[in-house]
């Protein structure tokens, strides 16, 4: 008896709370995507095609992360993009690495085509004992090499993380430096040295 009464009641409430021309979440998704195309224009190197999302970007565009399964799938796909150093050489010059870590330049519409980009690491991470102007979107990497050591495993992980952070955390806030062409292989080698070299101010006081 109860069941029969409740069903129509619930229906009536649902109908009342939706205004006449309410738009469904799916319709809003479509309109939002259209809006993200129509509201922008080319400016210098920043072209409107940048408004088109990659599949994983779309999956990571809600307040909540996608399901564990979807995350795993994305990570597996991103893992395939990682380019390992052909000559097995993981490390460059930490002094060059520091410059790249500090520079947040590149890829905006006020930057020039072909200019060398920075890594912007200090926008998000603490790294050295000396540089006090650092952001906190990512964890502190102070004494990274000193704390983590330099086993093959940690070296490979770190190279992979710098090349494509999404391979280890699908919706990471960290850019895909290698995969998205933000940094070159050599620049990543310099950053590796900055993180691991005992003489680098990341590790040396």
């Amino acid at each position, binding site marked *: 008896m109860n069941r029969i009464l409740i069903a129509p009641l619930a229906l009536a409430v649902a109908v009342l709370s939706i205004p006449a021309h309410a738009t469904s*979440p799916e319709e809003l998704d479509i309109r939002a995507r259209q809006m993200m195309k129509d509201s922008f224009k080319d400016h210098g190197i920043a072209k409107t095609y940048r408004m088109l999302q990659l599949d994983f970007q779309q999956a990571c565009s809600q307040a909540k992360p996608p399901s564990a399964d979807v995350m795993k799938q994305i990570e597996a796909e991103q893992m395939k993009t990682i380019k390992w150093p052909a000559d097995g050489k993981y490390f460059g010059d930490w002094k060059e690495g520091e410059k790249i870590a500090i520079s947040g330049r590149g890829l905006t519409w006020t930057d020039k085509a072909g200019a060398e980009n920075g890594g912007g690491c*200090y926008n998000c991470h603490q790294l050295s004992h000396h540089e006090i102007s650092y952001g906190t979107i990512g964890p502190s990497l102070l004494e990274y090499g000193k704390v983590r050591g330099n086993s093959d495993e940690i070296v490979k992980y770190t190279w992979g993380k710098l090349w494509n952070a999404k391979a280890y955390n699908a919706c990471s806030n960290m850019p895909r430096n290698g995969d998205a062409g933000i940094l070159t292989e050599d620049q990543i080698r310099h950053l590796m040295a900055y993180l691991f070299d005992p003489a680098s101010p990341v590790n040396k006081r």
Partner: protein
Amino acid sequence: MRNALKPIAIVAALVMSHGTAVAQSTADDIAKYREMIADGNPSELFEMEGEELWKTPRGPMKATLEKCDLGMGPGVVKGASARMPRFFKDTGRVQDLESRLLTCMQTLQGIDPKLVIDGKFNSGERKTMAALVAYVVTHSKGDKVRVDMTNPQMKELYALGERAFYYRTGPMDFSCATCHGEDGKRIRLQDLPNLTKHEGAAAGWGSWPAYRVSNSQFWTMQHRLNDCFRQQRTAEPIYASDVTIALSVYMAAKANGGEVMTPGLKR
């Protein structure tokens, strides 16, 4: 007003130098600066210019903006920007302050909105716009953010604004939420308000438009959003385009009830 100029140089120096022993956020420097100039914000110059422009006959129709309806009746400026964005029956659209001023400039003065939309910040009609905005927002200082979220069009734009806020794209995969989605984060030494919550949105939305000490410019909300999209590495948002209105509705709705502190004083 003269006196204000010296402290600007001092705070610019404070803000620019990171050489001190202790990591200090930019907010601390700005707080020092606020004390120094105790009475008066350098944006007063822009407000005065804006008031003058409001009352000066301009454009092909040689009319003033004194009959401009910002939602509270023709010519009413007090409290108007605290209630914006809002839905306007005459245009059938939700408009933020700047898109509404474009409507007034067009209908009352005959000024082509393209002059602003296709213009450059800090020059020509966009500079005029910034002064007008400075004038209008000063008249909501101390008011509460009061945007009407019972209006169906506003609700729809909120839903679109929320989607825009989380929309990750471009070479760095950033969305607004990358930088403004958590409490207590910084980029270098700049504090990032969490715009997904009331407190952060009230602090962020409530203190723009603002005078920027680092470059002595007055920035409108359209200008603020434009520069955040630049940092996000997207293409350039078109001035007063739907995405800028939708994001403004999203932030204003989150800020609702918070204090209007415009014009703000920023790095």
